[in-house]
């Protein structure tokens, strides 16, 4: 029974506060009335009776408060009323509240967005069953200059051995990426992404087809039957979700493939293809090089150590150890790593660097908020003193402040989720499709929890400093003095500003270096004329074009048709264009004192008009002509880097390579994305150009699996609106050849520099945010000084000080703090930014231009942020200020 009574009271106190309060009020008032009655009966006058009664009661409010304190659930109730009071306080200071909430929303929002990337890329498991049993293989090279430990693609021999001699694993390989191919199914002709995979690829991923089956081992043998598995979206969009699709034939690469399966809805693979076909890997052709990407799944009852031992045993016994050829004297071994790590390792440094930058933003925000709340606490000294005088305990006062901070943090945190969501969406608009190795970057419960924790942590961080600083304040004396903002608090606030400016300097310097690096890459001497060039890509991964004669006919007819387009000056075809990733070959010099020298070079086939269309300067000899046909002398054109590397800069024209191939010309270097020795995303490299007419059938078949050739035209005026006519010209030569895309040279440049542009955009946004927050911080510091010292300023101006002089005196505090921060930031940057070395191109870590830019930017911002609030000084009327007291 007592327990029930207790629970009832507790609930009543919590939820029916109003009724309990009315009851209490009535009770105390009736008590007072009865006391008065009693006194009147005792013979007192009306007034005296009332006074005596009130004296005995001791104040209705105090009595009620004493009852309230004894009530059950009083603690909870007090927090509730603190919250209400806090909200009222925050509503009463909309400027302060808005500043704090916006600061939190932006800074925590930035963290939410970046953390959701970290979450999606590094924390979340892959969307496959038992992801912990999935992996890929790393090659560890030690004891040579090229020491490394990373994911390597594998060649045909490695794949054979892995498949047959490592029973601990279910293994599979796929093409490095998808291949663009032309699909003809029923009346539909279209360009689709084909993922070429080995037999057990879907088993490793743990995917079961919705219809049909996986590829059989027979279908994966070289020259085996041609089969296809459709993705769910292709099955639905192109084949109308036809349940009888199995066994039907579709045309891919102009060859019939039998549909054997359909993937379930939402099934993703690392390839993300529209249609899957058997890889049919061998040690020949594609399998000669390391062109296959491998994934593995540990079988039940086996450990990763056992699997690693088996991999090493079989791969170390190979005939061709290319790793040793490339790194003489090195020690090479292999080990498995989780697939998640293998897929995201290359992005890890960038993502973590962004997380650090986001952490900086949070610290800057905390410094600002600490300053703001410190000032607010000082301003509320009188309120605090009043409450203390009315009997509030120190703890109650502190609790009130903490609750207000927490309220701010929660409101800011709620907004920050919105900010994070918008930021992520913008980020995705920036990203090319399939740029990230994950299907989505969700704002899931882990991200939400992170946001909540960060928000609360922020409120503790920015609330702690003011709480500590004000604990020493003598509230009694502050009642008298009106203001407590002493020298100590100013120093503290200046320290906070200096700290946040230092962090801003680091972010600004970092993003400045990235911008400089991007500018360097985008303004590399092009070596050709990019304006007025339009590019059309189409897939020639087609059995018809394995025949060189058909291929030549297509090139001749299509380029001739494109030249007929009004306004088109020239047209050509090239396997690769400047700025693109370029394949390579191994050559041997055949004459002179360099005879026998070998080396890798980038390799591009082109039609005769290629150099003229791109307007690449010819430095020596001649370019190709129609006479350089299949049966004529094999000729090549090389670039300047080629001549420099192999002939020490001497004229290469007339020299022979690979026994009988004659160099007939030398052209200028163009920037490209190297497949040979990538030290930068764009660089110039030794390159040989080959007449498209002299390329053999097997090589054409192989090249076109990986690369879609480019049709290029040069126009004098319009580059837009041209695409439809280019496509018509191509269709004249082959009606079944859809374009996969149209590009300007600028588009290709952007595509190659996606990562660099992302880095600049993200870090730049962070630096801008940091700058904004710092400006707000300095502004608040100075504005508050003006407000606090209005009286002093009035006196000084009354005594004859000029406005300018006073403005200088007041503004000095902000400028000094900022200056100190800049110096500190530059010193820190000198140490910290060294980690950026590997992502900088054409600019060093110690870059004068960047430093100057940072210093000038902060100088301008500081000046602006101090000037604006000091302008108020001009409006101060000394006479009025003096009268005010």
């Amino acid at each position: 029974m007592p327990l029930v009574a207790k629970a009832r009271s507790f609930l009543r106190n919590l939820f029916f506060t109003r009724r309990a309060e009315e009851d209490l009020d009535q009770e105390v008032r009736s008590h007072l009335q009865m006391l008065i009655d009693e006194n009147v009966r005792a013979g007192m006058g009306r007034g005296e009776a009332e006074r005596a009664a009130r004296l005995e009661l001791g104040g209705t409010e105090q009595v009620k408060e004493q009852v309230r304190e004894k009530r059950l659930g009083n603690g909870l109730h007090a927090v509730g009323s603190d919250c209400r009071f806090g909200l009222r306080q925050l509503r009463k200071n909309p400027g302060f509240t808005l500043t704090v909430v916006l600061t939190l929303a932006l800074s925590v929002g930035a963290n939410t967005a970046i953390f959701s990337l970290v979450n999606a890329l590094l924390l979340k498991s892959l969307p496959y069953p038992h992801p912990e049993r999935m992996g890929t293989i790393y090659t560890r090279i030690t004891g040579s200059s090229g020491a490394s430990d990373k994911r390597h693609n594998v060649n045909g021999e490695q794949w054979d051995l892995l498949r047959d001699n490592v029973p601990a694993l279910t293994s599979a390989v796929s093409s490095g990426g998808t291949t663009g191919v032309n699909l003809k199914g029923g009346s539909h002709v279209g360009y689709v992404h084909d993922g070429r995979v080995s037999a057990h690829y879907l088993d490793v991923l743990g995917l079961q087809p919705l219809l049909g089956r996986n590829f059989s081992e027979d279908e994966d043998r070289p020259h085996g039957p041609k089969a296809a598995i459709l993705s769910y979206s292709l099955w639905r969009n192109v084949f109308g979700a036809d349940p009888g699709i199995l066994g039907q034939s579709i045309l891919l690469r102009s060859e019939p493939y039998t549909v054997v399966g359909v993937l379930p809805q939402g099934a993703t693979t690392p390839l993300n293809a529209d249609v899957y076909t058997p890889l049919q890997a061998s040690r020949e052709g594609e399998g000669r090089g390391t062109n296959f990407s491998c994934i593995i799944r540990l079988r039940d009852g086996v450990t990763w150590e056992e699997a690693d031992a088996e991999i090493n045993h079989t791969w170390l016994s190979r005939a061709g150890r290319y790793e040793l050829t490339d790194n003489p004297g090195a020690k090479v071994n292999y080990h498995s790593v989780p697939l998640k790590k293998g897929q995201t390792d290359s992005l890890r440094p960038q993502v973590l660097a962004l997380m650090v930058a986001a952490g900086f933003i949070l610290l800057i925000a905390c410094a600002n908020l600490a300053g703001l709340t410190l000032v607010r606490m000082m301003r509320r000294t009188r309120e605090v003193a009043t409450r203390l005088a009315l009997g509030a305990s120190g703890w109650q006062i502190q609790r009130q402040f903490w609750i207000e901070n927490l309220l701010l943090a929660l409101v800011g945190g709620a907004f920050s989720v919105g900010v994070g969501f918008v930021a992520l969406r913008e980020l995705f608009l920036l990203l090319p499709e399939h740029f990230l190795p994950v299907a989505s970057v969700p704002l899931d419960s882990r991200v939400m929890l992170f946001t909540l924790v960060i928000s609360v942590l922020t409120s503790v961080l920015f609330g702690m400093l003011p709480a500590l600083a004000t604990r020493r304040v003598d509230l009694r004396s502050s009642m008298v003095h009106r203001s407590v903002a002493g020298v100590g608090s100013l120093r503290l606030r200046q320290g906070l500003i200096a700290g946040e400016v230092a962090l801003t300097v680091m972010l600004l310097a970092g993003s400045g270096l990235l911008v400089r690096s991007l500018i360097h890459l985008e303004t590399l001497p092009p070596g050709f004329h990019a304006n007025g060039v339009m590019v059309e890509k189409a897939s020639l991964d087609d059995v018809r074009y394995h025949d060189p004669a058909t291929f030549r006919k297509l090139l001749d007819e299509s380029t001739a048709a494109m030249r007929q387009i009004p306004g088109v000056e020239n047209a050509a075809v090239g396997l690769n264009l400047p700025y693109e990733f370029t394949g390579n070959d191994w050559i041997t010099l055949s004459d002179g004192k360099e005879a026998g020298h070998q080396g890798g070079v980038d390799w591009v086939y082109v039609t005769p008009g290629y150099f003229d269309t791109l307007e690449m300067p010819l430095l020596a000899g001649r370019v190709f002509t129609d006479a350089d046909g299949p049966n004529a002398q094999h000729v090549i054109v090389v670039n300047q880097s080629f001549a420099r590397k192999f002939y020490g800069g001497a004229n290469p024209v007339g020299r022979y390579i690979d026994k009988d191939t004659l160099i007939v010309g030398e052209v200028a270097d163009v920037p490209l994305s190297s497949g040979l020795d990538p030290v930068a995303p764009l660089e110039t490299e030794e390159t040989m150009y080959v007449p498209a007419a002299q390329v053999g059938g097997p090589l054409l078949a192989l090249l076109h699996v990986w690369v879609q050739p480019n049709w290029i035209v040069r126009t004098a005026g319009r580059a837009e609106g041209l695409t439809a006519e280019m496509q018509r010209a191509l269709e004249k030569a082959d009606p079944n050849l859809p374009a996969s895309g149209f590009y300007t040279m600028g588009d290709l440049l952007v595509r190659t520099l996606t990562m660099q542009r992302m880095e600049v955009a993200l870090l730049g946004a962070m630096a801008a945010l940091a700058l904004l927050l710092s400006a707000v911080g300095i502004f608040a510091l100075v504005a508050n000084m003006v407000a606090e010292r209005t009286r002093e300023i009035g006196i000084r101006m009354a005594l004859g000080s000029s406005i300018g002089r006073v403005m200088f005196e007041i503004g000095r505090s902000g400028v000094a703090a900022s200056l100190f921060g800049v110096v500190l930031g530059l010193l820190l940057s000198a140490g910290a930014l060294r980690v950026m070395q590997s992502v900088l191109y054409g600019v060093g870590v110690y870059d004068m231009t960047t430093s100057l830019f940072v210093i000038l930017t902060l100088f301008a911002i500081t000046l602006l942020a101090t000037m604006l609030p000091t302008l108020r000084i001009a409006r101060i009327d000394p006479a009025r200020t003096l009268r005010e007291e």
Partner: protein
Amino acid sequence: MSAEPTTLLQGTLDLLILKSLATGEMHGLGISRRIQQITGGTFLVKPGSLFPALHRMEEEGWTSSFWGDSENNRRAKYYRLTKAGRKQLEAESKRWGRISWAIAQALEAS
């Protein structure tokens, strides 16, 4: 703020209130006057102590309350003992008896 500063007196107040209510239902002022009367004026219970104690005891389930009319036709809140309250009075009385006996013994010892 309270006029009776020790925990012993806190316990005493509870006991005195329970004892006053043992004779029948009573409002706050009545209890206060009754205590004054039965202790020969030794304890003057101020509302600041009385009301918190009354509310606490009601939450404990020792008393229940209702609104009624006072002898002078004022609406007043009346309290009465519950079953638990009677038990509590018994227990408290026994405890107090032991304590006062012990204290008396201690003071008599030479």
